[in-house]
């Protein structure tokens, strides 16, 4: 019975009912006329005798409506009956589907929040990030210089506005203790790009954006609540940032979190300042809002023209530059997309396995209900009605499963947020109506996948079918579909197991890697500083050295150094260099990752000195260290030490001297082989470097002592990002770890489901073939032979499934190739282990029911016949 066809027939029926009834009344009228009444009287009597015509029509209509409702109610009631008759089966189905749908909805909620939903800015599709890129030098995209940013903004014709920012940590001195605040310096038009207006106060004025103008700041909602006590009259208040008095001119809405939730203060960066006129100092991360309807390709072409013109005008600085446009959303999302899709794929495979598992169980059950179904046929049910009834039974369970699944998903999305704070947009993952709808859709799809096939097969029994014969008494025919469904399940589970196995082995390989430095017992922290200090590098260098010396004297501190990057977790900054004395292959470009460190760096991280001596960061002449890979690649057979390195691009800096060679260290990431690297030994490069402190004991135990010491040395500065170096490394592997753990979990669930499925299938086979087994035993078969037959049946299914699964995995594992480290996607060991594991599990799962199947008392079975 289908609701839709009943609905579409409704109009038709209404008219037909009308004409059927008016025919009746007219016939009665005719009879009355024949009986001798006047036409008017005859009509009156007929209508009277007929009784309320409308009432009759209504009653006829109710026949149809109540039939439909009855059908639905009956189906639901029989579903309830079906559940009550075997509650353990219902529980298994609800739990299986609950886990399957829950895991699927959880991963979908992450995909929805991170990948599918637009960013939370108004018309966020118009937002792009702009980089400058020097293709000739093969350099990564870099930030943009102030003047160039202003040129782009003025000359383009495809953007509503372009603006840039850079962020730094500053100290808020208004409270009792100095507090670290992240401040973003923004160029004009910042609020226009983001399409926000302050909830209190105003945007910056022209005066405030000019060099030498008054200090002004927009503050975040959080800052307003925490430091300005949510004062509605906060505008005009003065805060002290890094010692400068700054007027609060406005408060931004709580929803505005750009560049990230850390930023509390936005101040104008004066683009007309004398120090901002250098085209080669690049500071700004630049975002623009496209005009409505402009495509990225159009904007890219427009910017290419603009930059080409600048290249002619300033050949030295702009000649080789191109502009790169990236949608803001992909900048925010980063590389997480492929991981999420892999997870979604595997969790969908898991749901498919769960559905097929239930299908196998249902297939067995519908076979047992053959008798009941043929009675329903005999009572006049149509096949459609029976299929619908069987599907309703499954749907009830599936909806219950999806409700359970939502609970799983709600828990999982909280866990997501808790375990992987580094994921982009992770705080946007939440249970909402989209996820609820999604899981209901999952329930319907699951119903069809696991219910339709058994229902169609189960309803094939004909009217004459098995009413007279009852199935337990005869030797039943084999049911190949059950084995086929089991085989497919095994193959899907094997695919998941191999995926998980590859990720696990890869994760192990990363864990075994020798990073080339020793991250144990190293504490990292930062001390706030302002880029304004870089105008007096000597003073800043003295300040940092004073802090270094002060901390070195703290008992428990073994060694201390500063570094621009966190070892093992840096994005890498490749630069092109020249060896002043000439190089082995003059045509070969010398490219190396640059690191800025203090001389103690190698000591703190225990990176071995291989040749020469450690550089000196306090001498008047600049010195550098290179790693072994650099020496081998560019200067083999040369005695490196004493040579001078210069930037290939014109630079005013005097080429520094190479003082020594150190061992290779995995500076960028543990899963990335170390390439050529150069360490510039300087302490005046940045105002707030990372302090790396090697301690005798647990690094975090020293944290409080060190903080106190820093407060003595620098009472006006704030300390932040205090954590062991090891947790930086952990963070860097967070995505990898999450991916590996989840996929392993899914694969384990899959193999458990297969285990249950095989157990169920063999048990069912044993039950339906009891009589056959009894006969065989009576005729002299040995129980062990019987057991072997059933066991082999299970193993054959598992083996065929395994082979199919291995082939499938070999095809699909290419998707994982980019995520693997130290294992090939076709790693034979993984494949063999998975094959053996699956066969072992299949043996165990089949053995128990196979032994039980042979434990039949022949006399008992034969007496039943």
């Amino acid at each position, binding site marked *: 019975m289908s609701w839709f066809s009943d609905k579409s027939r409704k109009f038709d029926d209404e008219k*037909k*009912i009308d*004409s*059927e*009834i008016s*025919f*009746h009344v*007219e*016939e*009665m009228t*005719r009879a009355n006329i024949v009986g001798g009444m006047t036409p008017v009287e005859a009509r009156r009597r007929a209508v009277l005798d*007929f*009784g*309320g015509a409308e*009432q*009759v029509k209504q*009653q*006829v209509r*109710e*026949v*149809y409506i109540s*039939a439909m409702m009855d059908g639905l109610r009956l189906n639901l009631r029989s579903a309830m009956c079906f559940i009550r008759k075997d509650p353990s089966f219902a529980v298994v189905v609800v739990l299986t589907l609950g886990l399957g749908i829950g895991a699927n909805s959880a991963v979908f909620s992450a995909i929805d929040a991170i990948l599918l939903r637009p960013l939370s800015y108004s018309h966020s599709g118009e937002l792009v990030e702009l980089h400058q890129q020097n293709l000739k030098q093969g350099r990564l995209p870099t930030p943009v210089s102030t003047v160039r940013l202003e040129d782009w903004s003025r000359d383009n014709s495809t953007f509503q506005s372009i603006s840039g920012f850079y962020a730094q940590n500053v100290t808020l001195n208004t409270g009792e203790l100095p507090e670290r605040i992240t401040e973003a310096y923004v160029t004009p038009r910042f609020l226009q790009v983001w399409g926000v207006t302050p909830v209190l106060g105003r945007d910056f004025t022209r005066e405030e954006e000019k060099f030498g103008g008054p200090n002004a700041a927009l503050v975040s909602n959080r800052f307003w609540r925490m430091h300005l006590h949510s004062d509605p009259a906060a505008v005009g208040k003065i805060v002290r940032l890094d010692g400068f008095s700054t007027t609060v001119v406005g408060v931004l809405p709580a929803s505005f979190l750009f560049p990230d939730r850390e930023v509390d203060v936005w101040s104008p960066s004066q683009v007309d300042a004398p120090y901002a006129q250098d085209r080669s100092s690049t500071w700004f991360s630049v975002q623009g809002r496209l005009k409505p309807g402009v495509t990225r390709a159009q904007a890219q072409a427009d910017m290419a023209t603009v930059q080409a013109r600048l290249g002619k005008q300033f050949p030295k600085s702009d000649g080789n530059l191109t502009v790169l446009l990236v949608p803001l959303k992909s900048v925010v999302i980063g590389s997480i997309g492929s991981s999420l899709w892999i997870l979604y794929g595997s969790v969908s495979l898991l749901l498919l396995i769960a559905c097929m598992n239930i299908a196998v169980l249902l297939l067995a059950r519908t076979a047992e209900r053959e008798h009941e179904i043929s009675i329903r046929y005999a009572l*006049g049910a*149509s096949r459609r009605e029976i299929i619908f009834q069987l599907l309703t039974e499954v749907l009830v369970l599936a909806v219950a499963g999806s409700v359970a699944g939502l609970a799983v998903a709600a828990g999982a999305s909280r866990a997501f947020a808790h375990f992987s704070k580094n994921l982009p947009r992770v705080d946007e993952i939440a249970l909402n109506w989209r996820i609820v709808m999604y899981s209901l859709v999952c329930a319907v799809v699951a119903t069809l996948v696991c219910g339709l096939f058994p229902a169609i097969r189960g309803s094939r029994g004909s009217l004459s079918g098995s009413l007279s014969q009852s199935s337990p008494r005869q030797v039943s025919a084999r049911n190949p579909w059950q084995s086929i469904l089991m085989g497919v399940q095994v193959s899907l589970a094997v695919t998941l197991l191999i995926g998980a196995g590859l990720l696990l082995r890869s994760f192990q390989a990363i864990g075994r890697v020798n990073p080339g430095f020793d991250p144990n017992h190293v504490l990292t922290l930062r001390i706030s500083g302002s880029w304004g200090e870089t105008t007096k590098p000597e003073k800043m260098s003295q300040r940092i050295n004073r802090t270094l010396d002060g901390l070195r004297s703290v008992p428990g501190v073994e060694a201390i150094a500063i570094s621009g990057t966190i070892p093992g977790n840096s994005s890498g900054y490749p630069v092109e260099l020249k060896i002043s004395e000439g190089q082995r292959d003059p045509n070969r470009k010398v490219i190396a990752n640059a690191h800025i460190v203090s001389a103690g760096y190698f000591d703190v991280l225990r990176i071995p000195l291989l040749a020469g001596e450690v550089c000196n960061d306090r001498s008047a002449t600049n010195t550098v260290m290179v790693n072994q890979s650099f020496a081998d690649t560019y200067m083999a057979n040369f005695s490196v030490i004493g040579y001078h390195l210069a930037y290939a691009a014109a630079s005013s800096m005097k080429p520094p001297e190479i003082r020594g060679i150190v061992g290779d260290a995995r500076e960028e990431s543990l899963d990335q082989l170390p390439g050529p690297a150069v360490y510039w030994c300087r302490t005046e490069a940045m105002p707030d470097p990372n302090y790396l402190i090697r301690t005798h004991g647990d690094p975090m135990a020293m944290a409080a002592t060190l903080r106190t010491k820093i407060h003595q040395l620098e009472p006006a500065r704030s300390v932040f990002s205090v954590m062991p170096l090891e947790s930086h490394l952990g963070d860097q592997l967070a995505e990898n770890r999450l991916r590996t753990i989840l996929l392993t979990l899914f694969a384990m669930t899959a193999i458990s489901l297969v285990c249950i499925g095989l157990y169920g299938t063999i048990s069912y086979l044993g039950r339906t073939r009891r009589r056959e087994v009894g006969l065989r035993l009576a005729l002299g078969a040995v129980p062990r032979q019987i057991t072997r037959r059933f066991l082999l049946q299970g193993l054959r299914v598992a083996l065929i499934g395994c082979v199919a699964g291995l082939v499938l995995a070999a095809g699909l594992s290419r998707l994982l190739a980019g995520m693997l480290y130290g294992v090939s996607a076709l790693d034979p060991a993984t494949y063999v282990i998975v094959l053996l594991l699956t066969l072992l599990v299949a043996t165990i799962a089949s053995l128990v029911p196979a032994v039980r199947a042979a434990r039949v008392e022949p006399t008992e079975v034969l007496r039943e016949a």
Partner: protein
Amino acid sequence: MRELKKADLLQGTLDMLILKVVALGSIHGYGISQRIQQISKDVLQVQQGSLYPALHRLQKRRWLESEWGESENGREAKFYRLSALGRKQLAAEEASWARLSEAITLILQTVR
């Protein structure tokens, strides 16, 4: 005891009577009500309020089939016909009615 002039139909017997009447040949709703009245010598009178819902119910159960045709005096009317399923149903109901009425008669005679 009050004399029954026009007997109310026993619950559930209307369906059987309709099936029986329709079994005689294709017929419309008005015809069915006339025929029941006629054959029962005016003892049984079918209320239209029960007839039409019953017809549609039987059709819904696929015991009756219907089609539109011309009536004896040239009007468009809906004719009902017994389906194979309806024929089986009628046989079953007749059998059970026979058993029931036999039993009731037996009781009435014995107890007297």
